[in-house]
């Protein structure tokens, strides 16, 4: 009896919370997603980013980039004379929260497009809500699955394994490094690369002699590297983006492995160089041209976009932007540029069509040209190889 009554009181609290507060809650919200309301009203875009939790290190720079650029756009008069508002929601690196936030942005804020989420899992989970509402999504997760499992509403700005694996394998084949010691992180990002490398290696005349994984929480990879060494690998190919990736070059140096380390775009950031220290010198990685904008040729739109963004970001936040910030910039501008081309009174479907019509947009990750079948929009031309020299990424060759 005691328990029952205590239970009842607990439930009373629930009833109060639900019964009293909620009716007020629904007053402020209405349904429907009208894109072009009254003139002078802001365009409202939603962004779901991982500001806390495991992916906080990626979500933070993404938010910085969006905040900075939205202010800049509005200072320059907005879009077609209307201000831009981006409502940023934190999904805490959590799939369920990403879905809930997306629902909130669509239902309560009537956003016309969604940027995000930071992670591939969240980006995929949001898809059902996105389809139901019919608003376009520009995902910032890098998993190939986002555009490989094609959805007409979903676009993607980061470089994917689909884009980069062939380049990496081609390089290994050209260099005659045919025995590949593969090491990947045990996450969605790593598995994406692992699966593709294993599937495509033979096409390039390569053999994966050892296929090792490590956990983001691991403190040491000498075991995996010793196995790679024992299989007689010519090269270590790493697919990883977590902080632990910087342990690999250190352990290779310590073991005197004496073979090159070639990496995915996941390591193309200062954090990796700082973590690897001297052992990082000479490490190779594939990434977009933003790390060396001069490859675009000075004065080209891509050069101006990249250098301008890096300058503004560095001035505003005191650190150079990493490529995650760049992917968020691209996500924002793909929507903004499409909005500029649209007349008042458009529908979310019109906006989607207009984003798909993007052609030759000079972004940070590369030059984006979407089509009805390609929603990642970049080509091999956008990717170059870098080497760590003197503690920074420089163009290789």
């Amino acid at each position, binding site marked *: 009896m005691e*328990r029952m009554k205590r239970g009842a009181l607990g*439930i009373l609290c629930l009833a109060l919370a639900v019964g009293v507060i*909620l009716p007020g*809650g629904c007053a402020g919200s209405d*349904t429907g997603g009208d894109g072009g309301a009254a003139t002078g009203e802001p365009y409202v875009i939603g962004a779901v980013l991982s500001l806390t939790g495991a992916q906080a290190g990626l979500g933070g720079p993404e938010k910085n980039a969006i905040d900075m650029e939205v202010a800049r756009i509005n200072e320059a008069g907005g879009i077609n004379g209307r201000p831009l508002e981006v409502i940023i929601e934190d999904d805490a690196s959590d799939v369920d929260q990403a879905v809930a936030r997306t629902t909130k942005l669509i239902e309560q804020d009537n956003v016309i497009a969604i940027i995000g989420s930071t992670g591939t899992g969240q980006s995929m989970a949001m898809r*059902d809500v996105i389809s139901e509402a019919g608003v376009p999504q520009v995902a910032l997760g890098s998993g190939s699955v986002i555009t490989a*499992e094609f959805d007409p509403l979903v676009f993607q700005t980061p470089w994917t394994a689909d884009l980069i694996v062939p380049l990496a394998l081609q390089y290994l084949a050209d260099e005659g490094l045919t025995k590949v010691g593969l090491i990947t992180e045990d996450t969605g990002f790593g598995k994406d690369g692992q699966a593709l490398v294993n599937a495509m290696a033979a096409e390039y005349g390569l053999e994966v002699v050892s296929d090792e994984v490590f956990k983001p929480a691991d403190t040491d990879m000498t075991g995996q590297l010793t196995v790679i060494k024992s299989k007689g690998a010519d090269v270590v190919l790493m697919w990883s983006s977590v902080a632990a990736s910087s342990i690999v070059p250190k352990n290779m140096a310590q073991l005197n492995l004496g073979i090159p380390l070639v990496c995915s775009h996941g390591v193309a950031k200062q954090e990796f160089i700082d973590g690897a220290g001297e052992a990082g010198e000479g490490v190779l990685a594939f990434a977009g041209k933003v790390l060396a904008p001069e490859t675009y040729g000075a004065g080209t739109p891509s050069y101006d976009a990249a250098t301008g963004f890096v300058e503004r970001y560095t001035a505003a936040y005191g650190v150079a932007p990493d490529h995650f910030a760049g992917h968020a910039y691209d996500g924002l501008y793909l929507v903004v540029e499409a909005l500029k081309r649209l007349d008042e009174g458009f529908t979310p479907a019109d906006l989607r069509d207009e984003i798909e019509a993007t052609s030759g947009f000079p972004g940070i990750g590369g030059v984006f040209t979407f089509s009805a079948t390609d929603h990642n929009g970049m080509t091999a031309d956008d990717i170059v190889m870098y080497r760590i020299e003197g503690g920074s990424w420089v163009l290789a060759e």
Partner: protein
Amino acid sequence: MSAPGKRNILAAVAIAICAVAIVALPFVVADRYILRILTVVGINVIMVAGLSLLFGYAGQISLGQAAFYGLGAYTSGYLAKAGVPWLVALVGGVGVAALGGLLIALPSLRLKGHYLAMATLGFGEIMLFFFTETESITGGSNGLRGIPPASIGPLEFATPVAKYFLVWAVVAIVLLLAANVVRHRPGRALRAIHGSEMGAQACGIDTVRVKIQVFVISAGLGGLAGVLYGHYVGFVSPSTFTLHYSLILVTMVALGGMGSLGGAVAGTVLLTLLPFIDAIIPGLPRTTVAVLQDWTNDIYGLVLILVMLFMPRGLAGWARSLVARLAERGSARVPGGERA
């Protein structure tokens, strides 16, 4: 009427209000965000009901409850995608989770102390590994997509409102059954275990057997919540079934008050809603919401510590003493009482 009797009426009234509020809500609120949040609350309530039984009534703790959640979600998701009717998939999901619970409970509950806590922690991590690695079944890190909504024969729970009602109907059934377990003989045996295991055994209670039963029930409830979750979201991926989620569930039970089902429900509602505060209080400035979201884990942790320090009986104990005081004051004002 006696004081306990009065309190019973109060309890009945509270439950009735609550039930009416839950049933009436979708007719008042059309906002899918709010419906979604409240559906998630319902799913968490089912999780926590199981944990609360284990925790409050058997004095045991599980740090791997997310594993049972995952077992339920993946099993039924996989079965449903293979074309199995939802009810069968549901039974499958609950069954596999309960079986997993049995496998852990049998060896660890023979031992005294916190072996169950330790074993569930290890079990949770191992299951997370399988959710990630057995890609042909679970879809690996990319997750299992396209899980059909729940359906019973021709009746499909596809709309947000239908999903909401389905989840809360199950919540009602689960809470009724759990309250029964608590009130009747098994519950008394459970409390005896929590009080003094030796005493309970002296009274002829097979404490190990009862503890194992309770653990299997709580694992099954975890599986049930997982089934509902999978068919609700339509997408399941390993990042949902982490130690962090298991710890948050423990926080919910602790906040509510160990040994009180109703308290656990209240704790679940409050903590689930915390990061979604903007759904409940619409006028809140964006910056306030952002700060609250930024500090959610700190708040969870602090709540856990402060509740254990200053309200060891949780919300339930606090509410009970509040009502006791109110009742005292009430009877002081109206000496003798006016009601029969």
